[in-house]
């Protein structure tokens, strides 16, 4: 039975699209790691609601001018690395796909980038205005789109593109011929991208698309029934898995009416046991289903680190552990990877639901109080519940048990992942011969 599952997963991973995606994600990992670390600095050290900002009392000793300057410096890194991640992804994916078929990878990558830029081109009021893009299509938020375009361009090169040149035998004549041979795939790509761009610019598709994730995330804040929260959490996790999640998103309870009512009650009565909205989705999610961001990635990282085996996965887990304990998990999603990896799909989607359900149940039994107190941005996941109850020790114990349970539940999937990786390891990738 198990070997059947492993075989199925291995077959899935040998599909050329998935091979191209996984190679691309490997290349993106260092970029997203640096992006996540910069994000951690911006949100946690330099934001007035940040964890380290308050713990280290940065406002006391750091002059405002310095603070502003540092904000610019670090925000520049996150904006370039995350908001233009799609461009990089598209290049690498087209490059890798073309290389599978021993086609000219460099021209394929360049063609991919131009295809994505054309698709994302935003029509202004008149054609004379400076260049402008639908930015959501270029960022990590649209990673799936960038990967698909890159793969498509790579396939086009397989069909029409020039062959790869071996470095040793290349002559000027070859280079010229090569450039001309790329003309066809480039032309076809341009025409297609123009059509897609036309479609995107004429409909309201973009507006709907670019707001879906944030709207869902905002909708998860207000509902007072646990069921809606479970559904929304499922939808968001699915989008994350497909590579459509916002890399820099950080879901905090907003000051909705219900949230304020709970907080006010707790402040007046000095305890949070009998707040008006005990099962408020946003605070339940934030306190108990948020160890390392969406999908309890911290539990996954710990499960990997505990498990003996594969070196590269351990290395990724060790590096991305630091941003992940402060709930900046995008580098883990890209590096392990979780994105488009069917092995982790089930726990990634459903474990948060299990956590919310258990937490709601334990709250109903009266074992832990509600969690209405404010929590700082970038508070380590396992401490959030404790802080949000103003230091209820029972909640701390409960959170630790929950985290332990999550790690245990992730372990079988980690084992499966290692088995699949072991099967894949000796398989050569596409046409990759030169190492």
């Amino acid at each position, binding site marked *: 039975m198990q070997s059947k599952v492993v075989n199925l997963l291995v077959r899935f991973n040998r599909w050329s699209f998935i091979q191209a995606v996984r190679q691309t994600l490997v290349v993106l990992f260092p970029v997203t790691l640096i992006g996540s670390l910069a994000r951690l600095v911006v949100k946690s050290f330099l934001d007035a609601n940040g964890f380290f900002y308050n*713990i280290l009392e940065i406002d006391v000793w750091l002059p405002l001018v310095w603070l502003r300057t540092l904000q610019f410096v670090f925000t520049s890194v996150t904006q370039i690395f995350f908001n233009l991640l799609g461009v990089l992804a598209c290049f690498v994916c087209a490059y890798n796909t073309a290389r599978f078929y021993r086609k000219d990878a460099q021209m394929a990558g360049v063609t991919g980038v131009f295809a994505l830029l054309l698709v994302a081109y935003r029509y202004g009021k008149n054609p004379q205005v400076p260049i402008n893009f639908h930015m959501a299509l270029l960022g990590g938020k649209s990673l799936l789109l960038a990967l698909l375009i890159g793969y498509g361009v790579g396939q086009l090169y397989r069909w029409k593109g020039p062959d790869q040149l071996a470095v040793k035998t290349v002559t000027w004549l070859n280079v010229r011929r090569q450039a001309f041979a790329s003309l066809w795939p480039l032309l076809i790509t341009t025409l297609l991208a123009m059509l897609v761009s036309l479609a995107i610019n004429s409909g309201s598709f973009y507006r709907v698309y670019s707001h879906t994730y944030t709207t869902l995330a905002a909708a998860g804040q207000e509902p007072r029934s646990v069921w809606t929260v479970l559904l929304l959490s499922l939808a968001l996790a699915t989008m994350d898995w497909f590579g459509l999640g916002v890399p820099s998103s950080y879901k905090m309870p907003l000051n909705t009416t219900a949230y304020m009512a709970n907080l006010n009650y707790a402040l007046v009565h000095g305890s949070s046991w009998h707040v008006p909205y005990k099962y408020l989705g946003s605070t339940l999610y934030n306190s108990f289903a948020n160890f390392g961001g969406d999908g309890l990635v911290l539990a996954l990282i710990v499960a990997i680190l505990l498990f003996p085996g594969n070196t590269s996965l*351990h290395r990724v887990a060790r590096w991305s*552990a630091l941003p992940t304990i402060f709930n900046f998990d995008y580098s883990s999603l890209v590096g392990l990877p979780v994105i488009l990896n069917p092995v982790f799909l089930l726990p990634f989607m459903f474990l948060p639901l299990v956590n919310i359900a258990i937490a709601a149940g334990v709250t109903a039994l009266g074992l832990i109080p509600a969690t209405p107190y*404010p929590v700082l941005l970038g508070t380590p996941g396992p*401490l959030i519940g404790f802080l949000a109850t103003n230091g209820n020790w029972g909640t701390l114990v409960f959170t630790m048990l929950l985290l332990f349970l999550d790690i245990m539940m992730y372990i079988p999937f980690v084992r499966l992942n290692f088995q699949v990786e072991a099967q894949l390891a000796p398989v050569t990738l596409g046409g990759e011969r030169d190492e």
Partner: protein
Amino acid sequence: MSKISKQVTRHSRRVLLALVVLIVLLAIPTYFWMKDANASLAAQRNSRMSPVIMIPGSSATMNRFNQLVEILNKQTDKKHSLLRLEVENNGKIKSSGWINRGDQEPIIVVGFENNRDGYQNIKKQTKMFNAAFELLSDKYNFNNFKAFGHSNGGLIWTLWLEKYYHQYAEQITIKRLMTLGTPYNFAETSIDQPTQMFSDLVKGRKKIPKNLDVYSVAGTESYDSDGLVPEQSVEAGKYIYQKQVNHYTTMTVTGSSAQHSSLPQNKQIVNLINHYLLDSTEPKPDPTSPDNGSN
């Protein structure tokens, strides 16, 4: 298990251990932050203090309203304590006077070392006032207050509401604002000649909180001026506040001591402050409360 993977496992376990230690080490200061932050949140939420914060006009000091408070305290049963702050040009804030224990409606006057006239100075004073306000809100934890500004003091309030108030809006409500002889358009007698400041204030009016009640009081000695500020310049406040705040009421005081500089000692005006600005001790029909002011 091969030797290499054993090594890897050991390395990973060390990282894991480091993470646990890091979280535990962070948990300690976090715990104290949490107790501290929630205690001050609760103190603010449960605070009963609702001070009146006053800003004097140009050339005046933090002692500008001493006489006013004296007259006010003679009139009312409730005695208001008086705290005076002065913001120096180097950013230091010195204080005199105090707030009596249990005084729920103290009067706090904020003056400035740089008390000169002119838009540039008013901008600076607004920034200085904000520093003082931050100090006050940290120290006294009030969740609502009333504002009073004489002459340019009213301009500082208006500018502060547009530029700085949003920092506090979630925790602190400004209930009422009374400006006295405030030249919204400086010395101009017509809004056809808007000053830079007036245009800026009109432009930023959307930032002024919608639930605020504003009273603009003018004094007249002749038929169109209090001797210094033209009545039209005081009236120009309507282009800033009207249709933005909950209520905008204008009043004109005439008679003796209606001259610009005497206004704060004018008995009529002390009555207005008592009646409109201060919280009432006994339930009195308030003509401007939102309940009966809706039509």
